């Protein structure tokens, strides 16, 4: 009975604190509690009773909550509808069940990237293309099948490319509402990029906060055992494989424990460093050579195109040479890099993966970079009729050929490799799904799409279809041809790195390319929504000037002149952001020191506990010896004659009890030290003390 009282009081306190929270916080707090569902339901009912009691006292305030409640219910119903769709839930579940979380992360990433493309396609189609259909000019060119591959020919005069869009203000009805195509184009693209920026920023922040590893030099072994068993894997064969992999890793770890640290001689270390340097020089040289090749090939391409619009089949197929060469480079050079990685002996396989991924990134960034340089500096200033459409076509071809090479890569890399691995050369075995290379391919494709949005508004739609096909092809190829990964792939860390890569070189690069195009480059004179203007951004300038005439919109003009177009404002904002960043960084440093101090404190408390336990044991042993020296009869007499002298001893167990009563949810069934006491032979008073 007396034990129930502190429990009841604790529960009343809990109910009281929960009742005073807002409903969101309360829901989260109840979710976090490690109690059974029935208990949580009881607590929630008690809390709701408390709240109605309180609100009855307050009276009218209860009804004010009602609109908020109904709004939340509507939002919930909408979310539930979308959740019911749950596309690909079953596919993802099967993939996770057989191959584990690491391979699953590729498919989840692909699904996430698809959302960007769907969103872009919808808003571009809605705001730019549909109005354009109303003011469309007839298309005089003929359609041959080759257009699907080259994007030129018939497609030049369609909504696919920038050049087709009109610069007029479209209005169906005379003196009716008009639709300014220039503003629509620039604002749609601009707002899309702003929204993407925010989504990427928040995703990155969320991933950093949940996946950030505090210290690297800590228990790899312990967490491997207890925290990385993949509960997702539900296939019997896959479970056996996972157990086998874990067994192999544990055995390797144990043999490393027994091995002594080998000190390399100076000569060996020198050879090591020289090999690493050489490998890096070769990789960078390959990347530079690839860039030079792409550059000269594209200049050649431009000369071909400058010979005017023509439907000559030969000339059009010649335009495909550049994208094919680029895709070949992107596919074959990574094999060179991984071969180089095998030559250099890395200390851990993790380093090998990391270095190979970095080299691939450098290659892809340099190729995309040189292409952007070529487009912005050479194509834009060339004397072609419509350079934006040219750039759009180039990007269309690159995207398409990259998609085809992705499918081919799946075919050769996985299907043929499996055939070879099972029939011709059985020692190779089944291929593994190369997560790093595939994710980098996805990021590359998405970068190209983002660059192309300005020049070809419907490109995200094409990429959307491509991603859908890639998902199914990769899934089928995975199920039929691949085996689950053998090595540890730090999923959370790698996913965070990939999202960071998507943001930092990829999206920011796209923003700078688009920024340079909009601000600095002169749009072509004869086509597109910005024809005749000195730059694409001039459309916004003109619009602001027209707004100045109306007094209603003076505030928009003020915001534009003083906030958006003023350098002082950005300078002030940058300074403020830098100061805030610096403050947060200092707080982080302080917290790290705090963590170290607390860690030391815990260790010290543990040592105190051990010391006190030993002291207690010594005391009790000493007392036992002195009591057995007093009366030699039996236990009972010794215990009965013991009672008077127990008084001081009773204090001692109380002290450790108070000191060690940690604030755990778990109840201590036995005191930690009573085990030691009862283990020392026939000392029954230990139990009487409790």
């Amino acid at each position: 009975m007396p034990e129930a009282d502190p429990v009841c009081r604790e529960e009343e306190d809990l109910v009281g604190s929960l009742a005073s929270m807002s409903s969101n916080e309360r829901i989260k707090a109840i979710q976090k509690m490690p109690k059974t569902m029935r208990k949580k339901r009881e607590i929630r009912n008690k809390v709701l009773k408390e709240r109605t009691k309180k609100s009855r006292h307050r009276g009218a305030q209860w009804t004010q909550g009602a609109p908020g409640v109904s709004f939340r219910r509507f939002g919930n119903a909408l979310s539930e509808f979308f959740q019911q769709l749950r596309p690909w839930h079953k596919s993802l579940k099967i993939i996770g069940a057989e191959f584990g979380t690491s391979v699953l992360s590729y498919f989840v990433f692909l699904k996430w990237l698809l959302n960007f493309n769907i969103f872009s396609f919808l808003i571009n189609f809605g705001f730019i293309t549909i109005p354009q259909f109303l003011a469309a000019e007839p298309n005089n060119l003929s359609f041959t099948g080759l257009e699907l591959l080259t994007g030129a020919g018939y497609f030049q005069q369609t909504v696919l490319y920038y050049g087709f869009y009109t610069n007029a203000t479209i209005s169906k009805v005379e003196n009716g509402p008009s639709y300014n195509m220039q503003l629509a184009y620039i604002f749609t693209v601009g707002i899309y990029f702003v929204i993407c920026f925010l989504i990427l920023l928040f995703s990155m922040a969320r991933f950093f906060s949940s996946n950030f590893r505090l210290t690297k030099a800590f228990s790899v072994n312990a967490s491997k055992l207890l925290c990385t068993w993949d509960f997702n894997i539900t296939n019997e064969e896959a479970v056996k494989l996972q157990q086998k992999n874990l067994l192999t890793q544990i055995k390797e770890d144990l043999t490393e424990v027994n091995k002594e640290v080998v000190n390399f001689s100076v000569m060996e270390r020198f050879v090591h460093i020289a090999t690493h340097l050489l490998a890096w020089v070769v990789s960078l040289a390959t990347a530079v050579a690839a860039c030079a090749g792409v550059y000269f090939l594209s200049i050649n391409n431009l000369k071909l195109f400058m010979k005017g619009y023509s439907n000559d089949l030969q000339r059009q197929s010649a335009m495909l040479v550049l994208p094919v060469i680029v895709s070949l480079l992107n596919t074959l050079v990574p094999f060179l890099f991984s071969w180089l990685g095998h030559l250099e002996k890395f200390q851990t396989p993790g380093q090998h993966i990391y270095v190979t991924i970095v080299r691939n990134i450098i290659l892809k960034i340099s190729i995309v970079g040189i292409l952007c340089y070529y487009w912005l500096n050479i194509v834009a200033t060339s004397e072609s009729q419509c350079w934006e459409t040219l750039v759009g076509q180039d990007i269309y071809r690159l995207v398409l050929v990259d998609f085809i090479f992705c499918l081919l890569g799946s075919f050769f890399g996985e299907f043929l490799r499996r055939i070879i691995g099972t029939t011709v050369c059985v020692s190779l075995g089944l291929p593994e799904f190369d997560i790093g290379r595939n994710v980098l391919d996805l990021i590359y494709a998405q970068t190209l799409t983002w660059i192309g949005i300005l020049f070809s508004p419907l490109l995200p739609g094409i990429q959307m279809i491509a991603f859908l096909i890639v998902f199914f092809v990769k899934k089928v190829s995975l199920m039929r041809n691949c085996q689950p990964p053998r090595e540890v792939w730090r999923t959370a860390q790698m996913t965070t790195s990939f999202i960071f890569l998507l943001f930092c070189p990829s999206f920011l690069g796209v923003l700078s390319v688009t920024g340079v195009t909009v601000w600095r480059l002169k749009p072509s004179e004869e086509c597109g929504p910005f024809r005749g203007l000195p730059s694409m951004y001039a459309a916004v300038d003109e619009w602001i000037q027209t707004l100045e005439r109306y007094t209603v919109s003076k505030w928009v003009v003020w915001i534009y002149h003083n906030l958006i177009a003023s350098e002082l404002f950005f300078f002030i904002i940058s300074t403020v952001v830098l100061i805030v960043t610096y403050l947060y960084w200092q707080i982080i440093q302080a917290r790290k020191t705090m963590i170290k101090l607390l860690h030391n404190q815990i260790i010290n408390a543990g040592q105190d506990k051990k010391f006190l336990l030993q002291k207690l044991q010594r005391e009790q042993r000493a007392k036992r010896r002195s009591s057995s020296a007093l009366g030699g009869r039996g236990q009972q007499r010794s215990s009965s004659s013991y009672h008077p002298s127990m008084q001081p001893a009773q204090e001692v167990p109380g002290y450790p009890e108070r000191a060690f009563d940690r604030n755990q949810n778990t109840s201590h069934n036995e005191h930690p030290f009573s085990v030691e006491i009862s283990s020392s032979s026939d000392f029954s008073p230990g139990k009487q003390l409790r």
Partner: protein
Amino acid sequence: MGNNKLNEPTRLSLCLRLFHRYRDLAPQLVPLDYSDKPAVTLPYELISSMPELKDNPFRQRIAEVFSEHGDGNMTLDDFLDMFSVLSEMAPRDLKAYYAFKIYDFNNDDYICKSDLAKTVNKLTRNELTPEEVSLVCEKVIYEADVDNDGKLSLADFQHMIVRAPDFLSTFHIRI
């Protein structure tokens, strides 16, 4: 991207799906109408025959931890509890708490060396020699035991979880 924590409607749809899965295990025992709170308990054998659990080496411990009396037989509430903790929406601390209980085979609120030995054997299909198992357990305790009492308490375990960011995605069963 993956972890959406806020959704009440996702919970509702998950609950509905789970109820139908529970019912599918024994349609003759589980009524469709739960409004009069019938006391239906499904035996452990049925629970462990679910495709998501049947090959999991820890299925018995999972069922024991979440069942009402610790014997593996689960009511609908226990079933919902189990899959809600194992879903992607449960917070990290909740998952850590239950993972700790799962690995604590003797239910003494500490993961001692014998618990670790049983865990290692389950993880490797009993293919390590006892000396190797003992070596591994000692290494784990040496690395993870912060307060030096020779066994892992809940605080030690949570401390270890912080350094394993993969835990959230691996301690997850998709329904």
